[in-house]
């Protein structure tokens, strides 16, 4: 489905539309899932442990780090704190999505939050209002997709040891670009995107993706200041023209 041409006001009210919207990303996450399965096996989680982590945690980067720490014999406190920090960006996702969710009871919203990932957030972030069915379609499609590819990685792990060393970070970038570009409609969002990307380069060496949180937060503040400055200057300009 051509997302960039959709209405940006309200998402469609159907599960299938959500599935269709996220479908290009499903293939993109396949290598991650396979590599995670192989990696989990390598770290000693076993087939049941690896699959259980995907089923219950459902957070790609956290799973990689958690499995790695487990394999290295890290303490439970270190694993908990690291997982918490890696997922801090979800506070921004939840804050952004919460007010825009339609037709969802409070208990359903809590359940929805379990399925909130980079990909599902990216899909629904294009709409000012998100209908619950649309979210469920996108989120559950990504969930089942992740389970399938994790399982493939787990059962074929011994044949895929070379895959574990591959750098797969770039795989999702084109999909995210396709979501960002149509949202760059004014100077404010453009400044926000450029400054977030630029600041994240400076802080990308910080552990546990803290740099990502700093970059996004600073970029939003910079953009709000820019927009405030522009709007407060506009009346002066208008008066000057009178």
């Amino acid at each position, binding site marked *: 489905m051509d997302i960039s041409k959709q209405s940006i006001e309200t998402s469609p009210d159907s599960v299938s539309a959500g599935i269709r919207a996220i479908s290009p990303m499903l293939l993109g996450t396949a290598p991650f899932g396979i590599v995670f399965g192989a990696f989990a096996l390598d770290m000693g989680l076993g087939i049941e442990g690896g699959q259980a982590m995907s089923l219950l945690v459902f957070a790609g980067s*956290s799973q990689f780090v958690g499995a790695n720490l487990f394999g290295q014999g890290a303490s439970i406190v270190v694993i908990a704190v690291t*997982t918490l920090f890696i997922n801090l960006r979800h506070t921004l996702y939840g804050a952004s999505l*919460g007010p825009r969710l339609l037709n969802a009871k409070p208990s359903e919203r809590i359940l929805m939050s379990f399925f*909130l990932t980079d990909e599902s957030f990216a899909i629904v972030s294009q709409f000012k209002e998100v209908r619950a069915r649309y979210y469920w379609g996108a989120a559950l499609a990504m969930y089942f997709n992740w389970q399938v590819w994790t399982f493939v990685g787990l059962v074929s792990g011994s044949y895929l040891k070379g895959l574990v060393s591959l750098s797969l970070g770039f795989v999702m*970038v*084109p999909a995210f670009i*396709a979501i960002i570009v149509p949202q760059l409609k004014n100077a404010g969002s453009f400044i926000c995107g450029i400054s977030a*990307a630029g600041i994240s380069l400076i802080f990308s060496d910080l552990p546990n993706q803290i740099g990502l949180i700093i970059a996004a*937060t600073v970029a939003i503040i910079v953009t*709000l200041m820019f927009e405030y400055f522009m709007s407060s200057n506009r009346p002066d300009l208008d008066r000057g023209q009178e």
Partner: protein
Amino acid sequence: MSTPIVIGVMVLATFSVRAFSIWLFSGRRLSPLTMRALALVPVAVLSAICGPLIFRPSGNWEIPFGLIEFWAALASMLVARYGMLPSILLGMGVYAIGKLIN
């Protein structure tokens, strides 16, 4: 340390963060400034994720023109307005070809 305990702790650490903010911001009347800030979250977070993957893929500072990731991202950006599929296909195509040549 047993696997179920590790997974249980990770479930708590992941789910608590996800659920808290959705619960906190759902059904509340927010100020225009907060709404605008939240509207900027997708662009800010996704750009911050992409930045290092495009310009510092190895973790080192490099001239972007020599990076396959840079050219693949540029190609992806050029067709992004036509939808996600063309963007993924062209971006990953350029990336794959670049990796093969190198």
